[in-house]
């Protein structure tokens, strides 16, 4: 194994890994969990803050961004409340090992979609409850490539980030050790190793590897956020294949088990079932706290600073809903940037039929990945690229796939009966950011609290269409070389990022390189919505790494208690 660099590398070199206990020094979540129960211990003893007690930071949303930020800053002594719209999940009590039964872990509140290529939301990309959408993410945890941070300079498309890969690299390493990530040595982007070795793969991934070798496509096993081996009190994966339905085992990482336990141990309050409806402003350039609905009552949490971490639809929506006299178009929206450049990745999937039984519902859907096509190749006729990954649809998702190929009635029943013979691979296409792909308010459609729901309009560019079409050809070639006897294809999207993008000037972005909303001293956005481009990588690891970096930048700025002085911390 190539030596991992940085702090983790040093820890490994000290020989700790030989004892079977690779893990971070500054996050004890894995030990704080109960080995025999899945729920987070200690919720009843969690610290509670009064509404009128001015906390150092109120975070909106307990997903990848919010939980990581809270865990880091709590260790630096910050007094923090996370307000989460959904429940505080207990996997034993709340989740079922069943596809249709997983409905409640998605954001099912109404939203409106439009554009030439509307993006379906809900179970595909939107989480609900403590842990956020990582509760139902597949588990792939790749890093972005260094090129992702400079696509405008390198390829003339997308945008350059105000930070570079090197700014995130130490945080990638930290988060990979905390989830932790399992996989083979990674040869693409900035080559690196993973703290845990790769998992065994299923029948379909074996066949895919065989086909890929025939057509000259290189894959690696991983990177997945599921430890292969002992990791504190977290059990080993049992290969039941329900990663997208919430891991009842506690094997697959989500902030619920990787950051929230340590955050609670350091005095964070996670206030679940608390839906934030607006951010309140005070003197020019300052926010004073958040209004939220809990148990049918409107309440107000006072805070010295607010970090919004509601993801690409709800974060822009909250900034827009918080419009007031001083900010008539919404917070941070003086330059009409909030909600713009919202992105999804193209995620077509191609399924192949094999003579042997393959049973694609076994083993975690995320198994193997290739980033061979990640970078721009002028011969392909479009900018940027895509990643190849495996997916293992459960029966309902497989029926959706069969339907997408035009089969229903007897034909669907026939393809469904053939389920055990199929395997599915997918891609993530880097679709480019476009200003008109945007989250706005649907003024004619109120949510259950009477506030307009989000409206997400999305259309692809020609570069996007060319990328998707080309990648489908590669998937086909691989499956055919693997011996597939029939092929079924579905067009779809995956992931959400952008909408409050990070930039160098207020004219073309919503937050600066420290996630601070332009025009405000103490308002931050710390989730996937700040990404200016999306690469072809699943965004979870990058969202956590960004929050980890922000925590490092903010951490030293906290002053002693006393709101007047605290305010200076963010100046």
């Amino acid at each position: 194994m190539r030596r991992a660099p940085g702090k983790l590398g040093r820890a490994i070199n000290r020989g700790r890994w030989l004892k079977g206990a690779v893990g971070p020094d500054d996050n004890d979540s894995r030990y704080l969990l109960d080995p025999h129960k899945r729920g987070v211990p200690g919720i009843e003893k969690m610290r509670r803050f009064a509404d009128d007690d001015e906390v150092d930071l109120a975070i909106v949303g307990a997903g990848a961004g919010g939980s990581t930020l809270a865990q880091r800053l709590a260790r630096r002594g910050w007094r923090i409340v996370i307000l989460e719209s959904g429940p505080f999940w207990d996997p034993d009590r709340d989740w079922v090992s069943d596809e249709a039964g997983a409905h409640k872990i998605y954001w099912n509140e109404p939203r409106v979609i439009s554009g030439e290529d509307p993006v379906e939301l809900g179970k595909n990309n939107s989480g609900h409850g403590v842990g956020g959408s990582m509760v139902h993410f597949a588990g792939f945890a790749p890093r972005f490539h260094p090129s992702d941070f400079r696509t405008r300079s390198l390829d003339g498309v997308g945008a350059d980030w105000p930070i570079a890969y090197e700014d995130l690299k130490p945080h990638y390493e930290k988060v990979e050790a905390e989830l932790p990530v399992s996989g083979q040595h990674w040869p693409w982007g900035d080559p690196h190793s993973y703290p845990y070795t790769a998992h065994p793969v299923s029948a379909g991934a074996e066949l895919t590897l065989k086909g890929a070798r025939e057509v000259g496509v290189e894959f690696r096993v991983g990177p997945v956020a599921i430890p292969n081996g002992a990791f504190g009190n977290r059990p080993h994966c049992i290969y039941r294949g329900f990663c997208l339905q919430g891991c009842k085992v506690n094997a697959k990482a989500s902030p619920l088990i990787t950051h929230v336990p340590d955050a609670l141990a350091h005095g964070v309050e996670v206030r679940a079932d608390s839906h934030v409806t607006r951010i309140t402003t005070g003197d020019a350039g300052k926010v004073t706290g958040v209004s939220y609905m809990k148990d049918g009552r409107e309440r107000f949490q006072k805070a010295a600073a607010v970090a919004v971490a509601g993801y690409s639809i709800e974060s822009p929506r909250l900034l827009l809903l918080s419009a007031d006299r001083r900010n008539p178009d919404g917070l941070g929206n003086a330059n009409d940037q909030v909600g713009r450049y919202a992105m999804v990745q193209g995620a077509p999937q191609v399924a192949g039929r094999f003579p042997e039984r393959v049973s694609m519902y076994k083993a975690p859907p995320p198994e193997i990945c290739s980033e061979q096509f990640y970078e721009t190749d002028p011969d392909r006729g479009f900018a940027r690229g895509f990643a190849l990954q495996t997916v293992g649809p459960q029966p309902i998702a497989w029926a959706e796939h069969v339907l997408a190929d035009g089969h229903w009635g007897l034909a669907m029943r026939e393809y469904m009966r053939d389920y055990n013979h199929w395997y599915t691979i997918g891609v993530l296409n880097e679709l480019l950011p476009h200003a008109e792909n945007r989250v706005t308010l649907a003024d004619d459609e109120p949510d259950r609290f009477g506030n307009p729901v989000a409206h997400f309009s999305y259309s692809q560019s020609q570069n996007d269409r060319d990328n998707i079409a080309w990648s489908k050809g590669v998937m086909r070639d691989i499956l055919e070389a693997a011996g597939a006897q029939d092929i079924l294809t579905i067009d779809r999207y995956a992931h959400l990022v952008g909408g409050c993008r990070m930039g160098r000037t207020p004219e073309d972005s919503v937050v600066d390189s420290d996630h601070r909303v332009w025009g405000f001293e103490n308002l931050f956005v710390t989730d996937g919505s700040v990404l200016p481009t999306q690469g072809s990588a699943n965004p979870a690891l990058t969202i956590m790494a960004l929050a980890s970096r922000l925590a490092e930048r903010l951490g030293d700025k906290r002053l002693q208690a006393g709101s007047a002085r605290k305010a200076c911390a963010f100046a």
Partner: protein
Amino acid sequence: MSSYDDFRNPNHLPNHRRGRAAANPFDLPRQRRGKTPQMHGRYPDYDCLEQADHWDELTRKTVEGRLEPVTGYEFFSEEEVRTLEPFCDTIMAQGDEPKVPVLGMVDRKLAAGQLDGYRYENMPSDYETWRRVARGLDHTAREQGAEGFADLSAGDQVEICERFGEGELSGAEWDTMSITNAWGVVMRMIISQFYSHPWAWNEIGYGGPSYPRGYMRLGVGQREPYGKPEAMEPDPVSEVRKKGLP
């Protein structure tokens, strides 16, 4: 040649057949253990419910709850049920008993307000879409001289569903929304109900919840110890009975 080897060949799949037409499923074996919708299937000796003792309590209750018969409708009116039941049966090719009560399951979901978290701008709510589809199907049936969709022959019902799937229906309700999106809304709900039912899992040989036990045989051509082989030939005993032979 063993029965398993027959399924090495893909010729039974619609894309390999003339006009992408599916083969007659009644040529498949009859289910011998447990139930499948219409009792035909590929795994005549497999009943996933026999594994229910290995499932966690919460999941077991959720799955077994789907076996309870649907008694009465909350969301749909009697008239809508009369139209939508044959529609759902056509979509899922459920001509005979036993049937997965798809419309009843959809009704429960709509009555409980369990929607999917998005609506196309050019569409009414999913609730309203279902009602308009019911009225639209009857409208199209009346254009063909029938009183309603339910009064059409099975062949005519299939033909209308084909036109629905291709976005080719028009008039009355159909002109008030995107037909393609309406097809998406109702199909999404129908197939997600049908394939959440353990009888459908028996038909396709799906392992089911598998928690806390998990899977142990991941390799090519392997099945779990409780898994059953695929069978293509009809069961001789039931065939003889069916044909009324001595």
